[in-house]
């Protein structure tokens, strides 16, 4: 933050307000209707934060008392007219702690952070009932537990609200959720750590894919992060548009069919390994229900389930035709013809399933 928000350029002669502003607006209080800190408060906070520098060579930071503003800092009525007394020498850095304490004393900070957690784990819309019944209790616990995150998350993630069917599956997967999720769901095999060069190349492929879908790891577009996490009214719907949705499906299709090859190493979705781990892959109904239960957060309609089965059965109506094909593959797993007979059908089925809008939800 010292670099990204110009904190290292903030000194007593020319205070830089950038970090002081975002500290309040983005990281603690937010800009909600009940937040009334003033521009004077931004300037006062900036003066508190003067004196920090960075060393680009050692990638470290330090406090330089000579750059620090030692005068008193007066805050507005919103902050209970708080005055942070100016300190000299190394004690100047202690003003920062006082500033942080002041920010976390405000009720709105706990509410704002609780809403952020809620939007990350449940849904972006927060109506009055949710505010009263979920957000306020979270904020209360947040303050009571001295801003420890774990108890607050425990409260949210074990609440009946969290498991209410109405609230389930309201999240659209972020690009990283999608890309990494796909790798994990299918236990995709990457080169191991002894072959770290190739392992990194493969990880970089996944990172690039997510980046093409508008989420480059560790590189948010602005200080506010990715708009999908904060931009009303659409929030995470912003992840899905006419450019990014086809990219998701293209990546999935590549991994499902040819796989991605680099340096002679290949990563791919191995449908046989996936299906082999299910309870009874020879039974097309169980194969599909197990798969759907694992991969889809929202129920599929009976028509879609039937469609998936139609793909698996090549349009036949007798379940045993799949069972027979599966059994002959299992009896002789190295036989190309029997193996391809099940793989081609599984690939078609998974391609259809993972192309479904339902798969984008979590």
């Amino acid at each position: 933050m010292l670099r990204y928000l110009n904190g290292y350029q903030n000194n007593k002669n020319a205070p830089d307000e950038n970090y002081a502003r975002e500290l309040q607006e983005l990281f603690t209080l937010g800009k909600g209707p009940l937040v009334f800190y003033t521009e004077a408060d931004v300037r006062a906070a900036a003066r508190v934060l003067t004196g920090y520098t960075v060393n680009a060579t050692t990638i470290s930071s330090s406090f330089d008392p000579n750059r620090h503003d030692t005068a008193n800092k007066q805050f507005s009525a919103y902050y209970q007219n708080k005055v942070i007394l100016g300190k000299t020498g190394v004690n100047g850095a202690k003003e920062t702690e006082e500033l942080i304490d002041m920010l976390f004393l405000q009720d709105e900070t706990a509410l704002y952070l609780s809403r952020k957690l809620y939007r990350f784990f449940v849904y972006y819309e927060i109506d009055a009932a949710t505010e009263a019944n979920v957000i306020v209790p979270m904020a209360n616990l947040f303050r009571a537990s001295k801003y420890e995150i774990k108890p607050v998350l425990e409260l949210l993630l074990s609440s009946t609200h969290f498991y209410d069917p109405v609230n389930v599956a309201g999240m659209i997967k972020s690009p990283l959720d999608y890309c990494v999720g796909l790798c994990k769901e299918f236990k995709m095999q990457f080169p191991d750590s002894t072959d770290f060069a190739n392992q990194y190349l493969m990880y970089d492929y996944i990172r690039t894919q997510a980046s093409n879908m508008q989420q480059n790891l560790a590189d948010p577009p602005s200080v506010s992060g990715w708009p999908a996490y904060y931009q009303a009214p659409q929030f995470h719907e912003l992840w899905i548009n006419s450019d990014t949705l086809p990219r998701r499906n293209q990546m999935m299709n590549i991994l499902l069919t040819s796989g991605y090859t680099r340096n002679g190493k290949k990563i791919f979705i191995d449908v046989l390994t996936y299906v082999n781990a299910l309870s009874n892959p020879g039974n097309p109904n169980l194969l599909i229900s197990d798969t759907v239960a694992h991969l889809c957060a929202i129920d599929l309609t009976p028509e879609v389930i039937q469609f998936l089965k139609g793909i698996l059965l090549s349009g036949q109506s007798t379940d045993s035709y799949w069972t027979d094909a599966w059994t002959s593959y299992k009896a002789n797993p190295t036989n190309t013809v029997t193996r391809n007979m099940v793989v081609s059908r599984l690939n078609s089925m998974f391609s259809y399933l993972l192309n479904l809008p339902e798969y984008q939800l979590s």
Partner: protein
Amino acid sequence: MKRRDFLQAIGPAGIVFPSLINGFTFKAFAESPLVSALIQAPTETDHVLVIIQLNGGNDGLNTVIPFDQYDQLANARSNIIIPKNKLLKLNGTSLTGLHPSMTGLQTLFNEEKLQIIQSVGYPQPNFSHFRATDIWMSASDSNQYVNSGWTGRYLAEEYAGYPTGYPNTVMPDPLAIQIGSFVSPAMQGPSVNMGMAISDPVNFYNLINGIQGASPNTRGGKELTYIRQVAQQTTQYGAAIKNAAAKVTKQFSGYPTGNSLADQLKIVARLIAGGLKTRIYMVSLGGFDTHAQQVIANATDTGAHARLLQRVSEGIKAFMDDLTFLNAHKRVIGMTFSEFGRRIKSNSSGGTDHGAAAPLFVFGHYAQNDVLGTSPEIPLVTSASANVPMQYDFRSVYSSLLKQWFCVPDTTLESVMLKNFQNLRVVKSSAPCMSSSPEILPGLDTKILLTNYPNPFQSSTTLSYESNGGHTLLQVFNTEGKLIKTLIDKEVSAGSHKITFENEGYAPGIYYARLQNSTQQQTRTMLLGR
């Protein structure tokens, strides 16, 4: 100079080079703007091929019934045989009748818009639905695994480089569209799938009307609707399909209801008449796997199989009427196929088990109007495993359609079909864009070209055959359709020839000798005695 001639002319310079994949020769094209520009100009044609897949293995012997073999057939399948007097007669032939529920196809035949090709199959038939379907889709040999489809390979030849640079002004529309509950590998090209799926009629109407399927009244449901909207907008050819559908505001009113095949064909007619340049459509109807109760015991012309055939017949008839209504009838040829036929002998549960060769239909204004081939020969005594021997390789039908309907030159045909197949007359010679190939000989020659003596035989029998010259194939199959011996597979001179078939320890019973030479073939039944 045509682009293909150009490519061939510059071939030796390394622009076109064969590469060996799975033992087959494919063409691979070097990256060059000039060459790809030439390649990207596809053949000028507004022709369309509609492929109807009958899933499950249609019982050909209760679909197209040989009057001249009726008594033997009645003997082999007494519990499901259809009364002779109920069979539908066809103009110009006394040998072939249709199932009574196929009045629509009878009319089409008599209006000269239907061809029946007898006993279509392939050597060494496979009786697994999956494998047999894969063989028909890929057009591979029975013992070869080819992971691309025949229409996919054709489209990859026509529209090189797809999907890069598509849609474009020359081809703004999907290359191929499949409708129905089966994702067809027939449209799989050498590297990418060339087809676009409209998974079912409901999705089609949702797409053209811009509505989404029902979603639950939850937060997840709300987001689902949002993603579906985006998905619909981003369907690559969504706009092209919507525009084409919008141009057709009125269709033929006589489509049957409760007929999913007719529902699918109605969409196809709309898209064709709406001006899509899409060349190939695939639709499907399931339920043909009639192992039991395919007929109602006391009324064998009714029941499950009769209902299926009625759907096929009424669906195709309404489709053809609609195309005429929409003035698109001259652009369309259709064909039916099923992954296999069924056994000659019925089983005791009133059904039939997985079999081999079966008839298929070619329909359209320009479809050749005849019964190609002879009635399948039904032995007096039939074993449970007896099958209809093949007269025509299904790949000859594909190959002939590509050649005669899409004007595919022979050199390309070979790379699409993976080898050379017989050119059968499936499109009327009056059709435009049909190559006037000298290989196509006048209709079926009734002259006997293949005999054997002695018959029955024990140690050996001598086959006498007539060839028009050129490549000649003489094979021997057993009753299960298994290829026992290939006696001739080479160029021979025109005229009469003889060759001996030795009994190399084969089981006694019926064997079929099959002669194939240019467009002709004949099958000869031989009996190996004890």
